[in-house]
Every structure is written in C-alpha cells, then in structure tokens.
C-alpha cells in the first residue's frame, strides 16, 4: 500500500516535470508574429470628362478655370496616360501651330494644352499632331489631393454657331503610385 502510494507520487511529480519542460526550455530569441490583414483598398479618383471651350463672337477662346483631378483613394495615385484625339470630323494638331489671325475659317483643327497644377510651374501637356501629345511621364497625386487642371485651345474661327459640339476627347488613365 505504501509502495503504491510512493509510486503514484513519483509518477505525479514526473508528469509535472514533463509538462513544465517547454517553459523551462524557453531561453534565447523569441519570435512573436505580427499579423496584418489588408482589406481591398479604396481606389477612387474624380476626373473631368468634359473640357468645354467657347469661341466668342470676337473670336476669343475661353475655357474653364475650375477643372481638377481629385484623389479620394486610400493612397497616392498617378496619372499614367493621357489620350487626346479629335472626333466628329475634327483633328488635333500641334499646340502653337494654328495662327489664329490667318487660319482659314471653318478649318476643323483643334490644338490643346493641359496644365496640371500651377499655371507657371505645373506639368504641361501639349497636343503634337494627329491624336498624339507629348505626355511622357506620370503626374502624382497624394492621398486626398486635388490637382487643378487648366487648359487652353486653338480653334480657327467658325462661321456656324455650335452649342456643345464635341470636337475632341481627352481620356485620363490613373493608377496606384507603386
């Protein structure tokens, strides 16, 4: 009886020792994992799809001064591409190539200049010919940034009065700044 009791006690002690082994063996470097869970980030950018131009009765070109590209995304984005092309019978030509004083009336050519940011220091993109322009880089917008977009155009005088006739389109392509 006494022997059995002793044996059981020994067994109990041994089991305690064995269960404590991991703790007793915890020496040296410890690795504590940091888990990251990422939900799909919000990609949200607001861009203008209309850049209206008015030719006044005196032949002056007027454009809007409130266009902008706005980044509502979870991080910075970049404008990676800008397409400019004439539509409905119009052609884009190099900006600066139309002599407004002597260009033939009713010529369906239009040239565009886009200025992103400050009008003196911002990024300038000019049309360079048929459906092409000189945009070659990327324009960055920080998170929650609003980038002003000024633009200018050259259009020869037209004898027919138009109301919101689409003569060209500009497509901005944006993506994450990675």
């Amino acid at each position, binding site marked *: 009886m006494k022997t059995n009791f002793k044996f059981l006690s020994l067994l109990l002690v041994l089991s305690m020792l064995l269960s404590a082994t991991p703790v007793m063996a915890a020496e040296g470097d410890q690795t504590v994992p940091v888990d990251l869970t990422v939900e799909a980030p*919000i990609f*949200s950018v*607001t861009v203008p*799809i209309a850049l209206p131009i008015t030719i006044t009765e005196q032949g002056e070109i007027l454009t809007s001064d409130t266009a902008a590209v706005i980044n509502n995304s979870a991080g910075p984005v970049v404008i990676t591409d800008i397409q400019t092309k004439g539509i409905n019978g119009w052609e884009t030509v190099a900006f600066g190539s139309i002599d407004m004083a002597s260009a033939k009336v009713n010529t369906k050519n239009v040239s565009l200049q886009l200025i992103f940011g400050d009008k003196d220091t911002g990024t300038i993109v000019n049309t360079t010919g048929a459906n092409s322009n000189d945009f070659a880089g990327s324009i960055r917008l920080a998170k929650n940034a609003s980038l002003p977009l000024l633009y200018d155009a050259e259009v020869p005088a037209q004898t027919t009065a138009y109301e919101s006739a689409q003569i060209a389109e500009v497509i901005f392509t944006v993506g994450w700044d990675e």
Partner: protein
Amino acid sequence: MQKQTLNNPFANIHLPQQFSGQQQVQQQQPQQVQYQQQYQPVQPQQPEQTKEKKKKSKKKYLLLLLLLLLIPLFKGVFIGDNPMPIPGINWDKNQSLGDLTGKSKEEIVAALNEKVQEGMINISMNTNPIFETGTSLGTLMITNSASNRYPQLIEIFTKDDNALVYSGAVDIGNKVEQSTLLVDLPKGDYECIAYFSAINPETGEKLGTAGANIKITVLN
C-alpha cells in the same frame, strides 16, 4: 447921374433851365427823391404777375419740347423702337434698341465652369479583382458613386492584346461587388485597363471616359 446900363453881351442869352441856379436847386430835390427811391426795398410782385411769368415759362418749355420732338422728323427716323414710316422702306418689326454684345467674358467662363462640374466623374473599383477560375465570380467591387450624374459603362481590356474581358453598366448610386468575366481566362495575372464611361441614360451615348489601371488575377 443916370445909371447907365452896361452893355451886357449876355443880356439876351437865356440859359437852359438846368443851368439856372434856382432851377438847379429845384431839380436837386427831385434827384434826391429819386436817389432815395433807388434804394428803397423792392416791393414783392403781385400774385397775378407770378402766374403770368409761370405761364410764359411753361410755354417756353412746351415749345422747346416740341422742337426736340420735331428734330428726328427732319432726320427721317425716330430714335427708338418705332421708326417713322418712309415710302418704299419696309421696317423689320422684330427690331429693338441696342447692338449685339452678347454675354460678358465672366458670364461665359461661369457657364464653362458649370459644364465642367457637371462633367466630373468619380471612378472606383477594386484594382486587383480575384477570380477563383476564369468562369467564376470575381471581386470587382465597382461603385458608381451617388455623387455622379450619369450611369457608367465599365469595359475592361487586357493591355497585351486589347481583349475585352468585362463589360457592364452600373446605375447611379449602385455597386457591383462580384461579377463574371466575358472570357474564360486561364490561371494567371492580367494587366488591364478599366474604362469608365459616363453614358446618356436615354440614348446610351458615351459622354466621356476615364481609365484605371487594374490587375485581374485568376487563381485556377
């Protein structure tokens, strides 16, 4: 001795009254009176005299007005909207005063600014949608924000071969959480451009387009 009357050469000469002494005295008196009268305060005019004067000035003004009205007659035409009839001339009844100056520069720019605001488009989607297979639903998470003015047509093209792999329209304020592709893409990653076009809700005409760089992942 008799007084002899001296021969007065001026005996028969009678001076004019104004030079005679007595008469001078006499005349001084009326002059004095007149002098006094000059500095007497002016007596106010009688009411009848005022009325007369007013009538006369009224007549003058009427005459002047009449003359002014008659001047254009001699020029041949009235200043105003209603020309005087001239034999052989047919005046356009739709004419009105003024020249064609139109809107001011500020008004035109304000109208252009309004058009730009109406044409702003918000594009939003998951830039890395994942598809279990080429035919399963994928996490596109396209949103046409309630702040947009137009429904949107979303078209996704692969960059390498410009293949259209997705096309769908989303109404204002709606979202597409998951959807399927048009093409059964094999397993892999595909660099694509998603074009968001604002469309006329009545005709479906594209009003403007913006693009977003995305990557489609097909797991199996």
